[in-house]
């Protein structure tokens, strides 16, 4: 279900994972370098992401829906509205209650939320259009230590097996007691429920340890040395190189332009 969309074919899907990863990171860095009042440039960054979405030929709603994931975190920046620097504005709520808020603080809050939202969109796009193996190869080519890449590769391979195990455990628990129909209290005392969950976690880890022994034995018997082989000698194609250059220059220009606007209060 995670990789449901990464096997399709489009310009974005065909791009080299290295170029995609580097450009995504550059995009996020540039976007977050922009000053708070460079709203014009935010629109341009947003339109860049939307164009990428169109190019990837995926349903735009899919990316947009997943990009809302970071929204609850906005709560962390909320105090800025009230503690920011003057000029302050005030708003009369019903009941004659006066609500004071800072204008620069509010703008900063809005900028943080919008920047975060656009950053998540591009990250979703990277995840959704790149196959896992390609991304791991890209990490390897970008000189991330092999041991670490191997751990992640193996983790991904067993993640879904173990998730199924967890789902089964949760289902078994709810069918036996601990969850009740909505509105009713769950069974047992709080510490009892915690103990049940902890027992599940404990048995999950024991099963995982035993599974890793079996996996290791199976790997050894198939001629496993010390590393999982990754093919990392493919050079960047000319098209990818052009995209990389064009993309970085575009991002650089947009960022400079944004600072130019933002530099004038």
């Amino acid at each position, binding site marked *: 279900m995670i990789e449901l969309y990464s096997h399709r074919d489009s310009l974005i899907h065909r791009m080299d994972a290295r170029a995609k990863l580097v450009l995504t*990171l550059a995009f996020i860095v540039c976007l977050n370098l922009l000053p708070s009042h460079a709203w014009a440039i935010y629109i341009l960054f947003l339109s860049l992401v939307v164009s990428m979405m169109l190019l990837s030929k995926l349903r735009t709603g899919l990316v947009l829906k997943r990009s809302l994931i970071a929204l609850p975190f906005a709560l962390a920046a909320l105090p800025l509205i009230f503690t920011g620097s003057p000029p302050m504005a005030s708003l009369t709520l019903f009941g004659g209650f006066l609500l004071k808020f800072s204008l620069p603080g509010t703008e900063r809050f809005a900028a943080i939320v919008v920047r975060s939202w656009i950053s998540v969109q591009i990250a979703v796009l990277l995840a959704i259009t790149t196959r896992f193996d390609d991304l791991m190869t890209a990490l390897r080519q970008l000189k991330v230590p092999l041991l670490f890449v191997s751990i992640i590769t193996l983790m991904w391979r067993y993640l879904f097996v173990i998730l199924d195990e967890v789902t089964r455990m949760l289902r078994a628990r709810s069918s036996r007691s601990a969850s009740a129909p909505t509105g009713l209290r769950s069974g047992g005392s709080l510490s009892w429920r915690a103990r049940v969950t*902890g027992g599940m*976690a404990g048995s999950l880890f024991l099963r995982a340890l035993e599974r890793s022994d079996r996996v290791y034995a199976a790997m050894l018997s198939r001629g496993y040395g010390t590393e999982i082989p990754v093919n990392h000698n493919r050079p960047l194609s000319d098209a990818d190189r052009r995209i990389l250059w064009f993309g970085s220059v575009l991002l650089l220009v947009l960022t400079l332009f944004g600072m130019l606007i933002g530099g004038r209060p």
Partner: protein
Amino acid sequence: MPYSILFSPQPMHIPDGFLSVVVSIVFWVISAIVLVIALRKTRETLADRQVPLMGVLAAAIFAGQMLNFSVTGGTSGHLLGAAIAVILLGPWPAVLVMTAVVSVQALFFQDGGLLALGANIFNMGIVGVFVAYAVYQLLIRLFKNTSWGMIVSGFIAAWSSIFVASLACALELALSGTSPANIAVPAMAGIHALIGVGEGLITTAALGFILAARKDLLKKEDASSSIGSKGIFVGGLLIAVVLAVLSPLASSHPDGLEWVAEQHGFLDTAKSALFNILPDYTLPGIENPVLTTIVAGILGVAIVFGVAFGVARAEKHGTSHEKVQEKS
């Protein structure tokens, strides 16, 4: 959809946009250095068994984070897993396992940002693990390795790993100027003092289960950890003490952090001063911010329509091309 639970954000994963670029890069560098040390240490102690062991355990911790129990109302307690990873694997492998979990969450599930990943690795993979290790080792020695001592130490280690990691998270937000320290620190600390209790309860019960089923695993770990890792022990205690002292200080004197944030602001003004060297230099539309926004909006729309048009054309071209091929 059974996997939809994967896409539920957790409170300590900072998304992109909430940390300033400077803070993010500093924490990327710190995390990278610690990771290199962890990789080297793990290679020495675990040899080639390490890859399957750590890979499968990372998957189990990721999946284990789905285990929850209802507390009251809509809230529920769940597991982060740093403490249990330390107790089962020892400190350095636990750093790698937690880093793998946090990285996959950021790369594939957007739980935590890519630029902010360095800071998230630092909070959950390094601070969480180091503190859990230091507290656990300290207490287990006090309790002389008894079974119930192990359980109590597990609870306190799990609670402090969550609590101290949340302090680190709050300070990073305050350093970035995203959230004022006198609000962020008490709020994060308060919430996570409660979340930590859930973590502690699950960790304790899991330890109890493992003690009953495979006592040998816990004893073995204890023997191997006494060989080395003094550095982590000291480091973990140091992190815990420094953050515990620094956070109330920062929240009662937000000026300190504001001063740092001002240095950031100073950087910004320095950047803009670069452009102010050319005072008469105006670009069309820059004078008037409203106009600039409108122009950017029109340009943006044009870009999007251009791309859409291009895709549609390429599509048409492609299909007609295929038709030609079919004919021939």
